[in-house]
């Protein structure tokens, strides 16, 4: 049985491709960012280990256009195709699936992803999809499901595996109950790097300071906190889990020694903290991996690390730290359930920079309650942090309610959504009613990105660079060049709707 894990190239009217971006949402970019879909990579490896034939089919990272991607897929003629959904590309997928079902009769389509897992019937009604996974643990779910389908011709009526919505016929769907991930994450295998063609993801990724960079197999699945309302790692259907430190260390060692990784980033959730973080750092040092010219990075939250842990991580060669700041005012942080106050931010950043980390801040604007004062406060705080050298890079996006997160539900309940057209959820424009004109949020984004070109910030960066070892300069220039290219792209994407407020499809 042949299984395709497929990511079609999706191109919008501006010629931009859909790519995974901040908060693992899809945004359209012209310049490439290729992020390895880690959980799908684990699923592919696991299924291959079980004896299935795997066609790893990421049209984006394999630099295919849509027609070439489609032709190649038909040629491969898989028995099952697995897709990953998220709100802004749902309509595209529904059409694509119907076309595929007509060109590849007999091929089963399985839809995964955060959007469809929360609205499985919608995808079954709107397309000829056969199965929707109601879990983000794609690897665990497919490991059970695919062999079951292979061995049972009556799987549509009798499948006992939880967490699925199965099509029985046109309007008859079989719900197998809620999925709950309770098996240890250690059971899921290390990603087979050759199977997923790792080099396609090793260079064009803003989270890599050095290349080749590699995303680790899930160190974490979801978020230990898991309460932020806008975030997809939030919901009773999600269960936080983490790999054992030893298993993660073994993989990091393999990636450095066998694949020559110069940067390993964990993008599978919010990384270890406390004892596990310290044990991991000690493990890196004990194995001598901190002397292999490889940097390590992760996603974290403010409030997770004390000074001793940061010092240890720094010694172990951790550098790139991605942290969501979201907003600078207490009310917004509270409404988003961030779990900390504005005062915690600077404390944490001071420690991170003291130990040589590169904090990359992710900020959002355009919450449906965000006032002019709150917006100004965010811009001012970000400027202050950047000018002080407490953060090295930043990324600003429009807060777009997605995938039926609590924030999305809240927007629906409060009737602040300006559109129901999923195409409008691509994070390129504000789609909620706000207390001040949308243009002010776009202007705020521009102000924040402009910090990167401000003499005060550049001076601070030069002072910072002067403290680094000579060998660090070369990649920092490369990184700086890529960062500026990305900043220009983000400004274009996020401000192209300035003065076009009415372009959102009204309800």
């Amino acid at each position, binding site marked *: 049985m042949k299984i395709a894990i497929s990511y079609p190239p999706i191109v919008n009217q501006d010629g931009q491709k859909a790519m995974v971006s901040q908060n693992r949402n899809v945004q359209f970019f012209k310049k490439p960012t290729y992020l390895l879909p880690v959980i799908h990579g684990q699923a592919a490896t696991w299924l291959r280990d079980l004896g299935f034939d795997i066609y790893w089919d990421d049209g984006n990272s394999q630099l295919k256009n849509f027609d070439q991607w489609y032709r190649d897929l038909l040629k491969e003629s898989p028995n099952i195709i697995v897709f990953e959904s998220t709100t802004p590309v749902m309509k595209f997928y529904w059409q694509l699936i119907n076309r595929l079902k007509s060109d590849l009769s007999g091929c089963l389509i399985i839809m995964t992803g955060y959007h469809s897992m929360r609205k499985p019937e919608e995808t079954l009604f709107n397309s000829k999809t056969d199965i929707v996974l109601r879990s983000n643990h794609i690897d665990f779910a497919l490991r059970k499901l695919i062999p079951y389908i292979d061995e049972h011709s009556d799987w549509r009526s009798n499948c006992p595996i939880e967490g699925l919505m199965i099509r029985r016929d046109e309007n008859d769907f079989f719900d197998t109950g809620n*999925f*709950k991930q*309770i098996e240890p994450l250690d059971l899921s295998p290390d990603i087979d790097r050759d199977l997923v063609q790792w080099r396609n993801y090793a260079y064009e990724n803003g989270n890599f300071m050095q290349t080749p960079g590699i995303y680790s197999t899930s160190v974490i699945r979801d978020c230990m906190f898991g309460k932020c309302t806008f975030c997809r790692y939030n919901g*009773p259907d999600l269960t936080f889990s*983490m790999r054992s430190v030893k298993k993660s260390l073994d993989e990091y060692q393999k990636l450095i020694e066998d694949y020559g990784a110069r940067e390993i980033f964990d993008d599978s959730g919010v990384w270890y903290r406390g004892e596990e973080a310290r044990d991991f750092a000690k493990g890196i040092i004990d194995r001598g991996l901190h002397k292999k010219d490889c940097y390590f990075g992760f996603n974290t939250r403010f409030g997770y690390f004390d000074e001793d842990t940061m010092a240890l991580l720094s010694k172990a060669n951790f550098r790139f730290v991605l942290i969501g700041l979201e907003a600078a005012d207490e009310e917004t942080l509270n409404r988003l359930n961030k779990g*900390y106050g504005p005062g*915690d931010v600077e404390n944490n950043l001071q420690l991170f920079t003291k130990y040589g980390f590169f904090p990359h801040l992710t900020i959002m604007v355009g919450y449906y309650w965000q006032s002019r004062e709150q917006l100004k406060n965010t811009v001012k705080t970000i400027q202050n942090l950047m000018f002080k050298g407490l953060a090295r890079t930043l990324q600003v996006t429009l807060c777009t309610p997605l995938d039926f997160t609590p924030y999305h539900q809240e927007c629906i309940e409060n009737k602040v959504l300006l559109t129901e057209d999923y195409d409008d959820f691509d994070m390129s424009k504000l789609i909620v009613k706000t207390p001040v004109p949308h243009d002010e949020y776009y202007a705020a984004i521009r102000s924040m990105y402009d910090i990167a070109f401000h003499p005060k910030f550049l001076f601070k960066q030069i002072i910072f660079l002067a403290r680094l070892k000579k060998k660090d300069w070369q990649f920092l220039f490369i990184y700086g060049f890529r960062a500026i290219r990305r900043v220009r792209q983000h400004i274009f994407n996020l401000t192209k709707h300035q003065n076009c407020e009415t372009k959102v499809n009204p309800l």
Partner: protein
Amino acid sequence: MFYKVLNIRSLSPSTYILRLERKKINFKPGQCFNIGLKASGINREYSIYSGINEPYLEFLIKEVQRGSVSSALRKANPGEEVDLHGPYGSFVVSPDEAKHNLFTFIATGTGIAPFHSFIRTYPNIDYRIINGIRTAKEQYDYGHYNSSRLTTCISRDDYWNGFKGRVTDYLKTINIDSTHIYFLCGNQNMIQESYELLRVKGVSGNQIFTEAFF
């Protein structure tokens, strides 16, 4: 937001109850809060221990060796302020659910905290608790539970007359009522094993709710 420490009640060398002023904060029994020392920039999540009708907030906290928050909080003096954010989470029982369902609460260690909150909030709730602890000294506030509804599994105490072993060992020996709603709270391994045992014994995944402590 800052809240004053009212007192710290030591339960054992490793465990204590932190009592904070309540102000006007509302929460649902079982929810969690983020707590840290003022201006430290570090916090951790703790499940509420007290009931919704009590005029204070209480948290059952195990002091983690080399932990940066649990040790510092234990040293806080009455009147000192701590940083508290929340409440958060959906590991809760609503008043309506408490009235109409039968519950089994399965805990290890300080994982009993949210169940204590349920019981303090809903005195008439129909429940059973299976509590896994290491030694008999960890039977904290047992007077607050109906002893006929409480089973204690002790894994490291030779003199214990009750069930000797882990919660999961106990679950293997008993009949499981598949009509109950099961709440599991504590360490991840216990949750993983208990979940599997319950599923094998016929409890639907829709009736099992989990909250892992890390």
